[in-house]
């Protein structure tokens, strides 16, 4: 797919695929087009080309079917009204009873409860989202995504605003979710160490084009990173790590 705003090209003929069990990490410097790529796949940004899910054109899918196939977690959430955590998570079940007259799907409440439990939000179910910390808010929307139970998760820097504890928690949670049958994750991350640790595959993007795609270790090889980031990334990572030697 390609994404253009008038004369400006953000993504130029980018093509990739994910299989069940994959956690594809999209990495690259600022302005590479990572978030745009995810936005286009999730149908939030207009694009040229095609996005296929099991052979079906995502753009032509009914919105509810699309939501049961793929769900998106944004990097931050500006909530304007004091919805409760429970209300946010229950919205995740919309795709199972969409439209005005459809009956409620069975097992909705069980799914909601499980999602809350998985994310450790059960105790906050009645809390207003306006009073949550950044980490709690992100976990509330992650719970919504788990309740939605799509087969493919699209995550745009899911832990961008979170401290280390939440960062570790969120990645561990998604890793656990991925162990279920027929599931895959595509996420944009800045932190290359996280990409190496959790990713099964990686896609290195620079100025709207794919530099490398494949296994995490090959893609995040020294020469690729040096070319894209114009610095000695490996050296820098080692230097950071050396701060922790006792």
């Amino acid at each position, binding site marked *: 797919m390609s994404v253009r705003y008038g004369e400006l090209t953000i993504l130029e003929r980018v093509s990739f695929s994910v299989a069940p069990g994959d956690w594809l990490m999209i990495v690259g410097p600022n302005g590479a087009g990572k978030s745009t790529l995810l936005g286009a796949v999730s149908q939030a940004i207009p694009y040229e080309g095609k996005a296929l899910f099991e052979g079906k054109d995502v753009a032509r899918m009914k919105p509810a079917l*699309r939501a049961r196939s793929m769900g998106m977690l944004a990097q931050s959430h500006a909530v304007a009204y004091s919805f409760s955590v429970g209300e946010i998570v229950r919205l995740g079940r*919309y795709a199972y009873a969409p439209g005005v007259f459809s009956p409620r799907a069975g097992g909705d409440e069980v799914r909601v409860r499980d999602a809350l439990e998985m994310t450790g939000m059960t105790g906050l179910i009645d809390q207003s989202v306006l009073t949550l910390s950044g980490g709690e808010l992100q976990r509330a929307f992650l719970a919504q995504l788990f309740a939605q139970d799509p087969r493919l998760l699209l995550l745009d820097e899911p832990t961008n605003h979170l401290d280390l504890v939440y960062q570790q928690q969120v990645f561990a949670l998604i890793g656990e979710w991925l162990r279920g049958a027929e599931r895959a994750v595509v996420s944009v991350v800045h932190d290359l160490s996280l990409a190496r640790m959790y990713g099964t595959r990686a896609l290195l993007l620079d100025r709207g084009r794919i530099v490398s795609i494949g296994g995490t270790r090959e893609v995040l090889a020294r020469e690729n990173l040096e070319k894209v980031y114009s610095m000695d990334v490996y050296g820098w990572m080692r230097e950071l790590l050396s701060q922790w030697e006792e």
Partner: protein
Amino acid sequence: MKTHPEGFRFHEYLLFGAATLIALALCVCAGSVSIPLKDTAAVVWNAIWKLPMPEGISADAIILSVRLPRVLCVALTGASLSLCGAAMQGLLKNPLADGSTLGVSSGASLGAVVAIAFNITLPGLPFAGTVAMAMLFALASLLIILALAYKLDFSLSTNTIILIGIVYSMFVSSIMSLVITFAQDKVRHIVFWTMGSLQGTSYENALVLLVTLAAFGAAILLHARELNAFAVGEDNALSVGVNVRRVRLAMLVCVSAVIGVCVSIGGTIGFVGLVTPHMVRMLTGPNHRRLLPASLFAGAVFLLLADLAARTLMNPLELPIGVVTSFVGALAFVYIFYSSRKGKNRA
């Protein structure tokens, strides 16, 4: 923190319904001539069942041909505007969205004024020309305002929308002045639209309002879950599987139709859709399955009380109802704007 159940429950319908009935009764009884509740009830009861008017009550004409139709129109207009305000605030995720702040009401009144000035009527239905033009102009205004807003600022932030609404209202009022200069003979009639008043409304007006509310208001009420998703965020609505484009268009059409009809009957009555949903949200929480029905009743009560104030405060002089609602609304606007800014700084 208090838990709000998902839907609007039976006893809440009873409670809100009772409050509306009390306000209705109060507004029929009170006024320049105050009529005892017992007499009012007797007159209305006998009129409904076509019984002869009770002896010794001279106020039956005031009640049946002046106050009752007006009070019904006031209640229906209040309910309609309030419901539209609540729906737009959810749809645009913006607590300051309302027919008057967005400029939709001004657009609708321009439609009505054009219809009056150039005698645009539908064959056989003299009244329908104004209504149709007001609805059409309301929808066109909403589309123009939102298209501009999306172009300038995709996130539809509060400031952008309000600013565009103000500019649009000014633009519309300049066109309105132009139309008025071409139709000097109808100036008095036209000025009425810019003031907002439900004085002298009829049972036919009430029926038109009721039918509109039953059709388009019901459609809004049925989209409560979709509006919840929009109120969390349009990107979130897209992710959970709401048909974003279809729902947005449906809501805009409904809101324009309802506001168009309200404006063609009562002129621009500002801020009702801003004040009531905001107050109701404090009671019910932001879930539209509770907010929308509660706003319907609360809007009726609010406008009934505003109309009562307009009729009685400066007795025997009557204020236009729009003056009262704008006075209350402008203060509420400042308060909501201030508190939403404060909330943003904290986050």
